[in-house]
């Protein structure tokens, strides 16, 4: 199997990981989130929608997992088009593709947290001022920056892995030149 085949295989396995995440989150949200909301009858309307928004997490993960497992052509194209000029050596190319896979893995794993943060921001912005949103604000404060940094790292690994190659294989590239 060539390098491209290995990458395609990796993308499909990330699809399996997506499905596993989706199953765990589906059981986390249904029925527990719905029960929790029903326990607090005096919640604002926006809070009562929360479980339905949370249901987006397993739905998005399932659709993404299915796409990556059965097709994933756009992902392949993006990575191969961006890294068409590597071709210096097999090891370097494999390293770049491995980084792209790691980036995809990181980005996929951050989907639930990202959806949660976006929803918390919407809650804070849309809730009337007399309703306490301290819990949501605390969640945003503690999660926003680490999540943004991790998304950045995942994105860089996925799109710009070749720059890491120049850093990691500096000596071997100099020898070849």
């Amino acid at each position: 199997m060539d390098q491209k085949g290995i990458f395609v295989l990796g993308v499909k396995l990330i699809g399996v990981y997506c499905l596993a995440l989706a199953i765990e989150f589906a059981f986390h949200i249904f029925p527990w989130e719905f029960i929790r909301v029903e326990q607090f009858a005096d919640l604002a309307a926006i809070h009562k929608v929360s479980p339905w928004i949370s249901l987006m997490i397993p739905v998005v993960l399932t659709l993404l997992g299915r796409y990556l497992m059965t097709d994933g052509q756009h992902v392949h194209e993006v990575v191969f088009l961006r890294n068409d000029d590597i071709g210096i050596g097999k090891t370097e190319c494999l390293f770049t593709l491995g980084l792209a896979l790691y980036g995809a893995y990181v980005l996929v794993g951050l989907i639930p947290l990202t959806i949660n943060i976006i929803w918390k921001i919407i809650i804070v912005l849309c809730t009337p001022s007399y309703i306490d949103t301290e819990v949501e604000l605390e969640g945003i404060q503690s999660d926003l920056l680490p999540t943004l940094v991790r998304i950045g790292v995942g994105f860089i690994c996925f799109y710009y892995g070749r720059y890491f190659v120049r850093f990691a294989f500096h000596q071997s590239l100099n020898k070849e030149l």
Partner: protein
Amino acid sequence: MDQRQLFETGVRLVGLYFLVRALPYFVGTIIHTVVLLGTTGQVFVRAKLYDTLSLVSDGLLIVIGLCLLKGFRFVRRIAFQEQQNVSTSPMKEFFTVGVKLVGILLAVGTIPRLVLPLSYFFYIVTSDQYSAASGEMGGRSYFVPQLAAILFGILLYLRGELLSAWAIPTGKDMENPDPDPTE
């Protein structure tokens, strides 16, 4: 390298991963326990149930890690029990191996995350009266997601071929899955 050899290598690596992951916590807990026993004469002073379950889960992870690292034959036999030497594409074979390894990682790797909700659950079940505090802990004791993840992992390990058949249909040319966009 054929499918089974690849699986065996992968299983050993996964075993090593679990061993490296669990050993520091296990040793740390043992040392902590010995120090506590020496100074206070008691083991697990505060959260007895949680500490005990953590120790058990770390121990379990180490045992499973050792079994996988040792490459016990039954691990391979269970994974490929019904499979005959059917000639399939290399991509499909590798994917099946990958799915089974993801299954092991998922099933065993979720065990430590099961400990906290399970300890809350046992606490509520064994407490005499259903207090307000245990009512608040109802959410924390909800261990179904972790259990579902473990069961899904076991399913992937036992029947990874089902997912392979879905992800890589037999008729598709898997040696060249997509046209090369760079060409």
